């Protein structure tokens, strides 16, 4: 199965100082832009995309995938320190990362994030190299019914997201409905209120920046410093120490890293799911199997590690599907499909056949990027940790303006900025009454997949029946997985309801 010749060719493509330096450059660029709230990773990649036109294929693609890897980590920096994720996949990292910052363990959290990201990325790359040819066969088996069930699988996580199952359902349902807005592939236009800009659906990044990022600013306003009333004391020496300590903590959880990366890769490989869903599912699983689940959300190491390794590993999976089938796994890979086509290469089954050496080169570039990610990540984190000592009166105007600029830059429309404002208002309201923001975001991300694939299932069969799902082997497996994921939740609800009813009866 493994030909020596193309593998060596791939390695040879990398043995070029230009390629090496561009990967390093890409990683740095990705980390820094990812860390700036408002400047999302897909935006960073799409800005650099036209510049890759004159580059050679391996140079251009390696550059963009390096940015993607860097961005996956970089967006966690602002999520951990400021509770403002730079990109959707960093939301979950902040669940435990930000409480750690508030406990004075910011550098430790960053160190853990660096190590988890780098390891996740590496594992994802290995998976990519070893298994990619297999992916083509498996992924082709996923037709509309299967892809729909994949979306449902992602949705089941919403149910477990929050103490109040009902609140999560309502928020998640709302998000899914928002996700269906736009023009369908049958030509029907839903929910756009006459705005042409909404024909492709509600834009995810502006919604994210508004819902989670901008609304956070309103809460930041209430305090003098991000972590409370006073600045955290620390110096570079101490920061470095904490960083390395955090790195060491990750090594104490090898199973978590392994399991999360595996989940990350698999989910990343599924079309449409992407790094965000990967991080949520991984986090959920880590919480479920942890000995101390109640610590999750309050600064649990395993929480952060599972989220970070999953979202970086998912890149390996997403690249696998993109390279072998040409289907993007998420926003970032969608831009990269464009990068390939710009080079005159069509990602898909033929790419591996016609350009095997190049594909291996790209995959090995991921391995290199993982090491650079580790080094660059540590370096940036050393200085990034100091950000929390900047008073909020400085941070808020800065972040506000950058958010506006970054949101505008995506499609060069002020319309997106206004969407951001609307979602900011919603975010504040939801925070006040304790509704899970991520449920809405997940809904917006998964809504289009669910809707389109369900529609295609209906179109292909002429009608919709459970029989369709039961007759196909892969969808049957997926159905079982969904039930398996829902079982613990159902059980928990049953127990809670019994308790509350029983409690009420006592009074």
């Amino acid at each position: 199965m493994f030909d020596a010749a193309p593998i060596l060719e791939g390695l040879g493509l990398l043995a070029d100082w230009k390629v090496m330096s561009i990967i390093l450059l890409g990683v740095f660029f990705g980390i820094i832009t990812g860390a700036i709230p408002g400047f999302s990773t897909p935006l960073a990649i799409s800005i650099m995309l036209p510049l890759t036109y004159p580059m050679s294929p391996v140079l251009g693609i390696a550059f963009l995938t390096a940015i993607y890897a860097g961005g996956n980590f970089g967006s966690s920096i602002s999520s951990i320190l400021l509770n403002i994720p730079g990109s959707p996949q960093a939301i979950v990292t902040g669940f435990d990362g930000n409480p750690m910052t508030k406990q004075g363990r910011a550098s430790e959290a960053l160190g853990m994030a660096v190590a988890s990201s780098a390891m996740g990325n590496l594992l994802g790359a290995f998976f990519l190299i070893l298994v990619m040819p297999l992916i083509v066969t498996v992924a082709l088996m996923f037709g509309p019914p299967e892809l729909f069930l994949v979306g449902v699988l992602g949705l089941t996580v919403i149910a477990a997201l929050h103490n109040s199952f009902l609140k999560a359902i309502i928020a998640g349902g709302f998000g899914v409905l928002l996700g269906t807005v736009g023009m369908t592939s049958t030509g029907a236009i839903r929910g756009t209120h006459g705005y042409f800009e909404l024909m492709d659906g509600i834009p995810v990044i502006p919604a994210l920046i508004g819902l989670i990022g901008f609304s956070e600013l309103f809460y930041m306003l209430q305090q003098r410093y991000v972590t409370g009333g006073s600045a955290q004391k620390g110096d570079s020496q101490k920061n470095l120490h904490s960083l390395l300590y955090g790195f060491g903590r990750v090594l104490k959880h090898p199973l978590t890293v392994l399991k999360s990366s595996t989940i990350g890769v698999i989910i990343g490989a599924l079309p449409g799911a992407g790094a965000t869903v990967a991080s949520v599912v991984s986090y959920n699983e880590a919480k479920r199997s942890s000995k101390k689940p109640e610590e999750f959300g309050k600064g649990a190491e395993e929480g952060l590690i599972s989220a970070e390794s999953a979202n970086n590993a998912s890149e390996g999976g997403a690249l696998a599907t993109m390279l072998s089938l040409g289907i993007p796994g998420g926003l970032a890979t969608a831009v990269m499909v464009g990068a390939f086509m710009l080079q005159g290469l069509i990602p898909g089954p033929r790419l591996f056949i016609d350009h095997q050496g190049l594909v291996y080169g790209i995959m090995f570039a991921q391995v290199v990027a993982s090491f650079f990610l580790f080094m660059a990540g540590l370096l940036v984190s050393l200085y990034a940790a100091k950000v929390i000592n900047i008073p909020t009166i400085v941070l808020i105007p800065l972040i506000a303006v950058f958010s506006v600029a970054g949101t505008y830059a995506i499609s060069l429309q002020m319309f997106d900025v206004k969407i951001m404002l609307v979602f900011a208002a919603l975010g504040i309201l939801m925070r006040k009454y304790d509704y899970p923001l991520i449920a809405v975001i997940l809904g917006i991300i998964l809504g289009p997949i669910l809707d389109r694939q369900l529609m295609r299932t209906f179109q292909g069969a002429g009608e919709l029946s459970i029989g369709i799902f039961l007759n196909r082997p892969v969808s049957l497996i997926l159905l079982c997985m969904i039930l398996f994921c829902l079982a613990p939740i159902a059980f928990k609800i049953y127990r809670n309801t019994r308790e509350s009813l029983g409690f009420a009866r006592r009074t």
Partner: protein
Amino acid sequence: MDFMRQLGKKGGEFAVPSIMLAYATYYYLEVSSLPRREINLLLIQPVYFVMLVAFVILVSAYIYGLLVGRGAFASGSDAADRKITNKISTLSFAVLTVAYVFGIEWLGFVISSWLYMALLLMLFSVKSWLIIVIFPAGTALFIYLTFDMWLSIPLPKGILL
């Protein structure tokens, strides 16, 4: 009618789900009136139904809890330990932000950002005039140079810059 008073006081609890359900209902009805209804509503219908059921259960459970005298509905959530205490500042921030966004199209990005940040700093009681003027100017200029000049992302230019 202690129950009614309690309901009114904590009525805000229903703000979020009510808004969500209201929009969902409006959306559902809007899509229902489009041709080829069954294909457009494939996903929307079940999701809406689930939302409706969840909403009803939520409200019923709450009212039930009130009637039984258990009072505090949101007692489990400690996320509300982040309260908005600084009401005036918060409101001003919101108003300024909205004005800023609409001002960009009129005055251009650089000038609006400069004004916005300066006004924010004043709102935050920054005393030094030097900081109020220089810091926003520097930031706005930096963004302009990075986006417009270096990355070729043209920022909105209103009647000014």
